[in-house]
């Protein structure tokens, strides 16, 4: 593409310079996750010290490289040496790192996580060999945490917009064929083949068509899309342009939740960069002209559903609309519309750059390519990963995630957020792909994996997710609105020890009605956490109902605490932490708990250093 030729050449020079070992450089991971862990303060400290000491090193910001458990992450590169990745860096650590590593040339081994090089460096393992990275294959996340996301040149230098160039050398139909050949399926959750979907929108005849990027990531525990938007916004813009070219759309909306301010900021910048470069709002020689607008969502989960999302863009109440008509025929403003998720579009730009074959070579038979997952919950290495589809659940949880921390026993993993289901220890050999997950009653969904250990009560977990969908149901259709309410009421009853065995049948009947009768995906999938926990953890339900006992000791309504008089030293710690004043005793005296005042919050249990609080 002519307009990019000069820019790309310059960008490549700049990138070479940036990555060369001639200069010293400090790179701080400052995506939302890094910032929450204190990355900005760390960055300021580096800037201050580098300036104060007159060191010739640039301090730059990058996004999330995925090792969220180790945030804030900082890469420090001394001229002539490979870059060392430090983890859990606090402002206090900065002076030491600067002094020892940047000035003294000796990496701080105790803080070093990996070295960004092909070979180990001074005893530090390579990033590729890092246990969290070894099994990963980064296609969508190729740039995240590697480039400066606000630097257009970085994206260009790493092959950016080559996918678009390649697309322009083909007819739109050929692009669609390429997409079909790649085997890419919608990464938002439904897993519908992207090429086929584009084909439908292409076939719709209309002067105006829309393409929408769904960035309304709302599953609790999911943050893949945010990381991509924060770390590599141009990959999504390029994907949108390719999709627009393929289906014949000239306008695009990125529907992004307003809880993602940094992602919005990065997107805005990236769009203005693309406009400035002449990629957007300008007619190409082939007649293609494209415009992208950002639409901020206001925090309704149901807007992740495509027809609700379109209603929201149109400025009316977000409620799903019946299909047909399908968006490909009559979508946004009643025009043919194609909706793809962030990750799908980021994959598109990569596929069109490298060709369908290399993407299709990854993954399993019917689930090609890679998928990003966010690991959260009771897992040692929480973070963002990308693996070929078909990777086994056990590999993800134990090898990449490092299993449950503190030696606790793994109990279950909730996949696919509130629409998904839970998997158990028996599923460690299950290939994580669309077919494998479906066979176990769960879904990949958008890619959230929340790990539960022996302390998690599965009834309470189901209650949590149903409580989420209950309050996020738009209320339009009966099965979802009333079904989620009743599921939640019954689960609450069971957690409080007031359940009856008939309730289990009730749960199933309600769940099946919701699956069959609900209008949109939210209601159809909302009972999944209930159904899978009932399938795999029925004994826990029964213990709550018949024995009025929570096996995980998590349901406060079923736990009582008392003081072990033999072990109590009268230290008064429990008395002080008790929020309801239920504990009395005084210094050096054996304490006691007033069961009428006790709300079973467990604060005493957690704070006692002498194991003198007994839990039943």
């Amino acid at each position, binding site marked *: 593409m002519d307009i990019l030729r000069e820019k790309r050449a310059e960008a490549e020079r700049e990138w070479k310079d940036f990555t060369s070992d001639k200069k010293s450089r400090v790179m701080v991971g400052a995506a939302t996750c890094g910032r929450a862990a204190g990355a900005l303060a760390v960055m300021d400290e580096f800037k201050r010290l580098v300036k104060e000491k007159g060191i010739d090193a640039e301090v730059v910001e990058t996004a999330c490289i995925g090792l969220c458990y180790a945030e804030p992450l900082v890469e420090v590169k001394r001229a002539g040496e490979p870059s060392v990745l430090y983890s859990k860096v606090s402002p206090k650590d900065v002076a030491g790192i600067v002094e020892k590593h940047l000035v003294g040339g000796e990496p701080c081994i105790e803080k070093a996580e990996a070295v960004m090089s092909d070979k180990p460096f001074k005893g530090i393992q390579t990033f590729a060999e890092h246990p969290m990275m070894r099994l990963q294959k980064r296609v969508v996340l190729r740039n995240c945490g590697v480039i400066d996301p606000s630097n257009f040149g970085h994206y260009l230098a790493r092959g950016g917009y080559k996918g678009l160039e390649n697309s322009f050398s083909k007819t739109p139909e050929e692009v669609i064929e390429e997409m079909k050949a790649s085997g890419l399926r919608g990464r938002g959750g439904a897993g519908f083949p992207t090429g086929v979907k584009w084909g439908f929108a292409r076939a719709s005849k209309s002067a105006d068509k829309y393409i929408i990027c769904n960035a309304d990531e709302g599953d609790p525990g999911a943050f893949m899309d945010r990381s991509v938007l924060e770390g590599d916004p141009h990959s999504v813009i390029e994907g949108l342009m390719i999709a627009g070219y393929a289906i014949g759309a000239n306008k695009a909306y990125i529907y992004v939740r307003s809880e993602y301010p940094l992602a919005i900021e990065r997107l805005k910048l990236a769009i203005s960069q693309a406009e400035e470069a002449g990629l957007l709002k300008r007619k190409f020689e082939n007649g293609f002209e494209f415009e992208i607008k950002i639409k901020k969502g206001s925090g309704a989960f149901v807007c992740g559903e495509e027809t609700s999302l379109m209603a929201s863009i149109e400025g009316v109440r977000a409620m799903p609309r019946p299909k047909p008509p399908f968006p490909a025929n009559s979508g946004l403003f009643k025009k043919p519309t194609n909706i793809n998720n962030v990750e799908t579009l980021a994959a598109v730009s990569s596929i069109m750059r490298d060709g369908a074959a290399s993407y299709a070579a990854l993954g399993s038979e019917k689930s090609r390519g890679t998928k990003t997952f966010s690991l959260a919950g009771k897992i040692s290495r929480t973070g963002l990963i990308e693996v070929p589809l078909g990777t086994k659940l056990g590999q993800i949880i134990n090898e990449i995630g490092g299993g449950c921390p503190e030696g606790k026993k793994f109990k279950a993993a909730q996949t696919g957020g509130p629409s998904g289901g839970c998997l158990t220890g028996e599923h460690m050999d299950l290939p994580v792909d669309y077919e494998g997950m479906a066979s176990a009653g769960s879904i990949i969904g958008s890619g959230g994996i929340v790990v539960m250990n022996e302390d998690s009560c599965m009834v309470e977990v189901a209650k949590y997710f149903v409580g989420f969908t209950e*309050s996020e149901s738009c209320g339009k259709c009966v099965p979802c609105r009333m079904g989620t309410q*009743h599921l939640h009421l019954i689960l609450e009853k069971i957690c409080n020890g007031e359940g009856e065995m008939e309730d289990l049948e009730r749960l199933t009947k309600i769940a099946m009605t919701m699956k069959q009768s609900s209008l949109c995906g939210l209601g159809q999938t909302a009972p999944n956490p209930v159904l899978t926990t009932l399938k795999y953890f029925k004994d826990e339900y029964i213990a709550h109902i018949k024995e009025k006992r929570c096996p995980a000791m998590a349901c406060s309504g079923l736990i009582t605490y008392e003081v072990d008089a033999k072990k109590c030293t009268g230290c008064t710690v429990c008395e002080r932490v008790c929020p309801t004043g239920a504990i009395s005793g005084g210094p050096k005296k054996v304490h006691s708990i007033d069961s009428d005042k006790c709300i079973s919050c467990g604060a005493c249990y957690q704070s006692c250093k002498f194991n003198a609080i007994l839990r039943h």
Partner: protein
Amino acid sequence: METFTLNIDGVVVEATQGMTVLQAAKKAGLFIPSLCAHDELDPYGACRLCVVEIDGVRGTPTSCTTPAAPGMVVRTNTEQRQLQRRRTIELMMSGHPSPCLVCDSRQDCAIEKAQPTRATSATRCGACSNRPGCELRGAVLGNYERDIGLPMIYDPAKVERNDPFIDKDHNLCVLCGRCFRVCEKIHDKPAIAIANRGKKAKISSEFEKAWSAEECLFCGACVEECPTGCLTDRWGKWFGLPDKVVESVCALCPKHCKISLKIKDGFVIGAKSVSLKKSDSLCALGKFAYAQLINARSRLTRAYVRRGKEQIPASKQELIERLAEIFKSADSKALIIVSNGAYFEARAAARALAESFKADMVEPGLDAGEESLPPEVLGKLSRGEYKAALVFGNYISGENASKIDRLVIADFLKTDAQKYAEVIIPTAILAESAGTLSGENGEEKLCSSIISASGDRRGLSETLSELCQILGLDTSKYRPASEKLDAAFRSPAADKSAIPARFMGHYLADYAPDLAQLGLPFSPNELGNAGDKDAGSYEIIENKTLVPNFHELKVRAPEVAKFAKPGQFAILMANSRSERSPFTIIDWNADEGWVKFIIEEVGRSSAEIASLSKGDKLWVVSGPLGTPVNLELFAEGSKVLLAGGCYGIGAIYPIARALKERGVKVTAAIEASSAYMLYYRDELSKYADNLIIRTRDGSLGKKGGNLDTVAEIASEYDALIAVGCVFMMKQVASKTPLGEGKVQLCALNPIMVDGTGMCGACRVSVAGETKFACVDGPFFDLCKVDFVELGKRRTAYKLLEIEAMPRHIGGKCHR
């Protein structure tokens, strides 16, 4: 249009392009249950009742949203779809107070109580104004059973009465969306939509503001299209379904819209637009005020002429003769005022009279008052220069009226000026009389008489035409020309602020008080008493809502407390104009000087009392009245069964306490429609050895009512006392007697006035003898009461009671 065929349940059905499967089925006469679907609205797909199976289509699509296609094979009623539908219905009904629909006594009850109880909150079908017209009921009956066993979810906070004209009970709402969809269809930008999510989702204006503060024009289409009792016409909702709906013309403003009037028993009980087209949309006057105005309680019914000092009822003949005589005697000093909004025929006659007798003729606008009369006319009026005047409507004040020698007033409402009139002509208005008006585009519009005018009411055109005939005047040349609407005219149907304040000189808000909430003016002495509180002397210490419609009222009444005994009652009045109604004394404390009552809201008087709050005062607490329950009948150690329902749950409480103190073994059996209507369980448990609960829907305790409890266990008891509604007591009576020599009583609470045996309103037949419930009762032999007669007597004042139904605005009752 392209037609094709498809197969629905084995029937080959013809359809045209663009039809949905549901429409195709409907056209072929095949029934698929549906609720949110509406012929004139776009497919919505929310109720999920119309699910079907279609060959080659995944899952169970809704037939209301699926386009029919050639060759489609559809199955609507397989066993699986029936089950799916039943469960969806159960889910839907679990959020709609519907215990009546699964009650075993539903049919008997509907016969016994042909009219729903006029409760404030519709806690069940039997207390819902929309029972006769409920589409939900029609759609689910026969398909509704509690197969999953879901509890009913009911939230008392969801009853809203803060807007003019429209009562909103969101408990009844199933979010079918018809209301806001029809609003959008008519007004493009809807005034209402669904607010909030999930269980908090409800029909609302933006930010849950009052509709009157928003774009809502009160066209009432939402109320008309609501299939449940969620949105109702506050004034007209208790009248039931109309006998017929007749198209007419609204004469309340110069636009003269087409209007459909709902007629029942010869009365206009409501109005609606003739179609859902924007051009046919009504304003608040047409939709809501029309019926209130034509049924106003201060309508004139009798014609009067003065003889000496007296205004004496007069025949038509006398009236006409007197009119002729008055005009002849006027000596060119006469005034005629007939509004330009009156029928052409009346105006023509008035003009003919004016010309013939050289009278001053004024034709004020409909919306005008005295102040808009021409200054020279006002001057003459104030100087008393008119010898005679004919005034149609409320256009002159009492003061000016008093200065006219011979005044003729034609009007449909009573006014102050009428006491100075020599002749009062009660007129038929609106749909009561026929005549001609201008159409919007200058065409003539003929309005026909739809209901007959009662009393001496006649259209003014008729009276004046007859007068002219006698006087030999030809009115035809005076007929006004039909006129186009003025270009500056603003339609009240499109602009709330254009709603006229007056009709024939009368403030509309005096007769449709909700208009005041839209900012319309009213006469100082009319609405001034809205929600007022007469200063009684019985202070309310506490008003606790136990369950919807049921209040525990604690009142300071030391004299009553000093003498109260179990089983007695007191007569209460909320204010000086209230009806006197009896209420059982539930509890009392002579030392502290208070008594407690259970107030069940079943109509005007109880709703008035229930709307009072702590610190307010009751006008009357007169009691204790009635004969206390004879405790001597119940021996120590004997077993007594107390059966209570509705207010009776509270009424058996003092009896249980007294019996317990005597050492009697007490079992309290209580029933309610559903778990959310049960109260006093803890209170009764204090004195009852046993508490047996039954709910009509089976949501708590065994399914059924006290009749089942009595049938099951009463034989083990030595005595039985039943207190509750007539239907419950009658049902219990059908399961007795317990056996020879056993005591079985009921407590009756019929209509009373004085409560001391003087008025006889509370007559009941017991074993063929007439008794007065107030002094002989309230306790009678359960098996000997004529419940059929009692039930009939209770409905004797049905129509008056409906007309008296209070308007709740801002939680308070007002007229």
